C-alpha cells in the first residue's frame, strides 16, 4: 500500500541545510497498523507529511495506493489526498464554526463523493461509529478533547480512504481516552484500513502490528 524508497527530505534554513529524512526505505502493506516512534525532531512527522502528500520529498520515490505522489500537481494532490488519505492531528483541527456533523460532511462536500442528500446520513453513521452521534449538532468548542478527536477520526473516514495517517493523535488526551482511540484505530485496521500513527505513547504503540523507529531522520 505504501512504498518508500531512498526517501530524503532536506530543508533550507537560515542556519543552513537541515536533513530531516535521510534515504528511508519502507514498505507498509494494506491493513497494517504501523506506529512510528522516535524522539522529538527525529523526523516522524516529516515522514508522515511525505506519505500524506502534505510535503514533497527532496529525493527518492514514494508510492501510496499505487500513486506516485511526486508526479501529482497541486490540485491532483488535493483530490488524491481527499480520496486516499484521512488525517488525524494532535490538536484535532476541527473547523470551529462548523458543527460536529458539518465537520464530518466537509470532505464529502469538497470531493462530491456522495449526493448531497446522503452526506448527512453518512456523517451520522460515522459519528455513531466513533460514539459521538449525540454531539452531532454541537460546535467543536462544546466537546471534550477525546470527543473532538473522535470527531476528527470520523472526518478522516468521511470519504472512506484506504489510508489513515495520525500525528500524535493522543498527545493531547488522557490515558483512558488514548487507549480508546487506539482501540478504534485497531478496529479500523482490522477492517482493512492501513494506519500509520506517529506517537510518543509507548503503551499505545504496543497495540499496533508494527513499530518503526526513526532516529535522526533514518529508520533505526
Amino acid at each position: 500500500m505504501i512504498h518508500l524508497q531512498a526517501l530524503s527530505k532536506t530543508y533550507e534554513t537560515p542556519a543552513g541545510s537541515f536533513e530531516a529524512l535521510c534515504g528511508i526505505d519502507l514498505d507498509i502493506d494494506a491493513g497494517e497498523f504501523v506506529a512510528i516512534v522516535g524522539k522529538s525532531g527525529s523526523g516522524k512527522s516529516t515522514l508522515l507529511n511525505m506519505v500524506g502528500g502534505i510535503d514533497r520529498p527532496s529525493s527518492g520515490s514514494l508510492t501510496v495506493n499505487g500513486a506516485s505522489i511526486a508526479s501529482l500537481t497541486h490540485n491532483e494532490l488535493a483530490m488524491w489526498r481527499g480520496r486516499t488519505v484521512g488525517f488525524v492531528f494532535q490538536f484535532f483541527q476541527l473547523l470551529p464554526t462548523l458543527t460536529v456533523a458539518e465537520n464530518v460532511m466537509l470532505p464529502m462536500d469538497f470531493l462530491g463523493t456522495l449526493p448531497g442528500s446522503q452526506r448527512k446520513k453518512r456523517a451520522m453513521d460515522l459519528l455513531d461509529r466513533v460514539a459521538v452521534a449525540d454531539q452531532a449538532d454541537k460546535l467543536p468548542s462544546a466537546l471534550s478533547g477525546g470527543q473532538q478527536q473522535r470527531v476528527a477520526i470520523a472526518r478522516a473516514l468521511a470519504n472512506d480512504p484506504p489510508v489513515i495517517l495520525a500525528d500524535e493523535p493522543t498527545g493531547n488526551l488522557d490515558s483512558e481516552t488514548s487507549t480508546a482511540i487506539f482501540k478504534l484505530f485497531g478496529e479500523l485496521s482490522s477492517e482493512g484500513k492501513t494506519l500509520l500513527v506517529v506517537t510518543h505513547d509507548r503503551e499505545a504503540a504496543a497495540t499496533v502490528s508494527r513499530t518503526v523507529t526513526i532516529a535522526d531522520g533514518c529508520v533505526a
Partner: protein
Amino acid sequence: MIAPRWRKVLRDIGQTPLRTALAVVAMAAGAFGVTMILTSYSILKRELGTMYTDTRPASAILTIDGTVDDTLVDSVRRMPGVADAEARPVIYGRIQVAKDHWLPLTLFVIRDFSDIRLDRFKPDSGAWPPGDDEMLIERSSLSVANASLSDRVIIRTSDHAEHAVRITGTVHAAGLAPGWMEHAVTGFVSWSSHLRSSATSADQLRLLVATDALNERHIRDVASKVEASINRKVTRIDVPTPGRHPHAAQMDTFLFLLGAFGALTFALSAVLVATMIHALLTEQLRQIGVMKTVGASTMQIAALYLGQVAILAAAALAIGIPLGIDAGGAYARFAASMLNATLRSTLPPLWIIAAEVLAGIAIPLLVALGPIARASRITIHEAFSNDIGRHPFGTRRFDRWLARIQWLPRPLMLSLRTTFHRRGRLILTVATLAAGGAAFIAALNVSAAWNRTLAADARGRRFDVQAVFSRPVPIAQVQQVLDKHPDVVHAEYWIESGAMLGETNVSLIGPDANTKLLDLPLIAGRWLQPDDEAVAVINQSALAHDLHLGGNIPLRINGKIVTWRIVGVVNELAPHANVYAPPRTILAATGKSPDLTRSARIVTRQRDIPGQLAAAKSIEQALNNAGIDVAAVQSLSDSRKSFADHLVIIKSALIFAALLVVLVGGLGLTSTLTLNVFERTREIGILSAIGATPRTIARDVVFEGMVMAVLSWFIAVIAAIPITFALDDAAGRMFIRSALDFYMSPTAVAAWLLLVLILAALSRFHPARRSARLAVREAIAYE
C-alpha cells in the same frame, strides 16, 4: 440545503461580529464616499448641462444706437440664418443697499413677460409680471440688495435720477451668475416701466442662430449680416461663448475636482479592502491547511473566500450606497445653490447605482483575487507552520539592522521589530493610511494654493479703490475732485478700451508709464517700459490664444487689425484675456482722447478694509456731487471678495473632499489598525504569559500604531506632492488658464499628522487592552 463549506463562510462572518462590523464599515465608508461623489457629480453634470440650454441662451447680442422696436425685431426674425430674435434694452444703474452704500444694478427691460423667447427666466415667488413702477429681482440678488419682497428700493440711474421702485417678485434666471457672487443686483422691468422712459438704456437685440449654434464664427457671420441689413448703427456685438454658462469654468473645475477626489476615494477604499482581506486570510491560514488536508482544491478554497468577500462587500454596499446617494443629493443641492441652479431631481441616474453595485462587488473581488489566490495555493505545510512568513526574523538585511538597535526599552524594541517584520501587514496598513493622508493633504494644498494665488494677485494691485465711470469723463474734472479729497493719497487715470483677439473680447489696459499701482508677477519677458511703442504685455488667458513671447498679438480695433509685439506675460487671477500696452499705443490704435478716462485707481489714506470702504463711499459722494457719472466705486477688498466668492464652490469641493477622506479614511484606518491588533492576539498572549501587564502591552501596541502612523504620514506627504501638482495644474488651467503655484500647506501636513496619530492611538488602545486581558490560554490557543 447549504453545503457545509458555505455554512462555514456564513458562520465565520457571524462568529466575529466586531471584526465583521469593522470590515463592513471600512468597505461601506469607501462605497459611501465613491457613491456620494458619483451621485453629486452625475446629478450636477446632468442638471447643469440642461439648465443653461433650457434658458435658450442668445447666440449674439447686438447693442444698437436707438430704439429696438417690434418692426425691427420681426424683420430680424425673418432673416435667413436667424431662428429667433428679441428686444431687450438694458438699464445700468446703482441700487441703494444701505445708507451711502450703492451696488451696481442691471435692469433688463422685457417686451412681453408671457412670451420670453431668449435668455429665459422663470417666476420664483411673488407677482409676475411687474407693474410700471415695479421690478422683479433675480432670486440670488435679493439678499445682495438687502431687500425683501414688497420693499421699495432706491435706484439711481446713469442720469443721476433716483427712482423708488417696488420689488414685487423674484425670478430664477439660470443663465445669469448669482448676484451674491458678482456683488451686483440684477432685475427685470416691463416694457411700459417708468424707468424705461426716464432712464437711458442700452437697446439690445438678442438673436438665436438657426443652425450651427455652437460655432462662434458662424454666429459672428450671422450677426454681421444682421448688422449690415438692419440699417441701424450697431455699437457692439457680443457673442457669449456658445453653449457655455457664464460660470462654466467654475463648474468644470468643480466637477473635475469632484471626479478627481472620487477616484482618490475609490483608490483609498480599494486599499482598505485589500487590508481587510489580508487580515482575514492571515487568521484563516490554519483552516485553509485543514481544508486542504481533507481534500479541498485551490479553486474551492479560493471560491470560499471570494464568496466571503462578496458577502461583506454586498453588506457594505447595502449601507454605503443609500447613505451615499442621500449625502450626494444633499451636496448636489448645496453646489447647485452656489451656481444659482435648481435641481429637478436629486436622484442619480440608474446606471450610476448599477455601476456602483457592480463595481462595489467587482472591485473588492478583484482586489482580493491576488491575496486569495496566494493563500489558496499555500501548502498545507506552510499553513500549519507557526512561522510568520517565509523569511524568519533576522534573515533579511533590514531585520539585522533593526536588531542592532539596542537602546530602546526591550518591549518597545519588540514592537518595532514586529512592525517591520510583518511586511505585508505593514505595507497594507501604511498604504491605507498614506492614501487617505495624501488625498487629505492634496485637497487642503489646492485650497491653500487658491488663497495664495488670490493674495499674490492682490499684492500686485497696489491701489485701494477703483472708480468706474458710466461714460468717458475729462481727467482734469476727476483730478480736481480727487486731488482735494482728504482720503485720497494718489490717483492714476489709465487708458482702457476693448478689442477683439480672433473671436474673443479682450480688455486693453494702458497703465501710466511709471505706475506704482501695478506689479503683476511676470511668467516671462518684462513689464512695459516708458519708451515702449507698439508692444504688449499679455496675461495667461490671452497667451492661451496660440500666442508666444516675442511674437505678435493681432488685435481688431475699430474694424482694423493692429499687431503689437509681445514683450511680457503676466500671471493674473483673471479668466478673461487682458492686454497691457503703453497708453499712447492704445490711444493711437483706438483714436481715443488722452484727456478722457473711464476709471480712476486710487490709493487711500487708510489702507485697511474699513478705511477702504469708508473712502469708497466718500469718494463716490464727492464724484457725484461734482456731477461725474459714476458707474461703480469699488474697494479692492470688495473686488477681492467678489473673486473669492467665485471660488467658494471650488473650495467647497476641496473641503468636502478633505472631510470625506477624513471620514472614509478615519473609519478605514480605525478598522485597519484595530484588526491589526486582533492579528496579534497570539503574540499578546505570549507576552502576557511571560509577565507583561495589560498596561505595558497596550502601550507597546499603541507605540506600534504610532510608528505606522508616522511612517504613513511621511509617505502621504511625499505622495501628496505629485497629486497636488496635477490638481493645481488642471484646476488652475480650467479656471484661470494657468496652473496654480504649487504650495505644500504646513497646516495640512501638521493636521494630518495630528489626525493620524490620534486615530492610531484611539484605534489601538482599546483592542490592545482587551487582548491583553484575555486569558493567556485563550490567546495562544491553536484555533
